[in-house]
């Protein structure tokens, strides 16, 4: 992504696009330690089954972490004013995630030119896992 594209975007421009390798049990185990979120739901199949799920599944925040990575590949972290998401569906093992972000609005706030981005993370079937938004300074 060129500096020009992120400093003078137009509504409809796709600023964010990245795909990630499949979510593995190993990644979930590492993320458990790396994030401090030791909820056994994501690493202990016995716990997940007792809770009524067929298997462990991804931390929502791992998926949001990937979306954040896709975002800061294009937008420097110090230009992100807000970043939010709704967790629309559980992300299962093996999911191959694609993150995208499009400009939906150009705005001015506190004397700063900003853009609103609509963000999504989908799996390989196209199911939306995360539906979010970021406000970035241009």
């Amino acid at each position, binding site marked *: 992504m060129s500096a020009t594209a992120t400093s003078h975007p137009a509504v409809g421009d796709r600023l964010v696009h990245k795909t*990630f*390798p499949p979510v593995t049990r190993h*990644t979930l185990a*590492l*993320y458990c*330690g*790396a*994030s*401090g*979120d*030791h*909820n*056994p*739901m994501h690493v202990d199949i016995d*716990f997940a089954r*007792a*809770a*009524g*799920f067929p298997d462990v599944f991804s*931390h*929502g*925040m*791992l998926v*949001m*972490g*990937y979306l*954040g*990575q896709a*975002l*800061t*590949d294009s937008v*420097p*972290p*110090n230009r*992100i*004013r*807000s*970043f*939010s*998401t*709704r*967790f629309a569906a*559980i992300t299962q093992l093996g999911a191959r995630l694609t993150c995208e972000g499009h400009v939906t609005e150009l705005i001015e706030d506190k004397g700063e030119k900003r853009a609103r981005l609509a963000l999504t993370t989908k799996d390989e079937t196209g199911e939306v896992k995360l539906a979010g938004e970021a406000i970035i300074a241009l």
Partner: protein
Amino acid sequence: MVDQSAVGRSFTPVTARVEPGRLRYFLNTLAEQNPIYRDEQAARAHGYAGTPVPPTYLFCLEMMDNERPFEFLTELKIDLARVLHGEQRFTYHAPVVVGDTLTFKSRVTGVTDKKGGAMTMVAVETEVTNQDGVRVADTARTIVVRNQEPA
């Protein structure tokens, strides 16, 4: 079951230091290769006071350095096995870099029943300040409590 009496409850503040080794573990886990997070000189050349943290890392810091990471669930008598993450928001006011010491102060701001009581949404908002007393961020999360077994 968690109810309106939870609204306004606050929890023990958490103090977390942004440590380079723990940050590297997070970056490696997500295969994050962006040099801004890995090379302090690169970060300084881009105008940062130090190595910045990825946009979701504040959530991790609050959990990692919490003496009781699930205090909020325990205090509200919510079973960890019945919890899903519903929504997450970060609002950034000032940069956070390696070496900072952050304080997280959280409180419950809403409890809403959904689907005829099958689920309860609990909203928690957190103020994040740094070692200089600067408010660096506000975060907000919504936790979904499944009051019934999934079909």
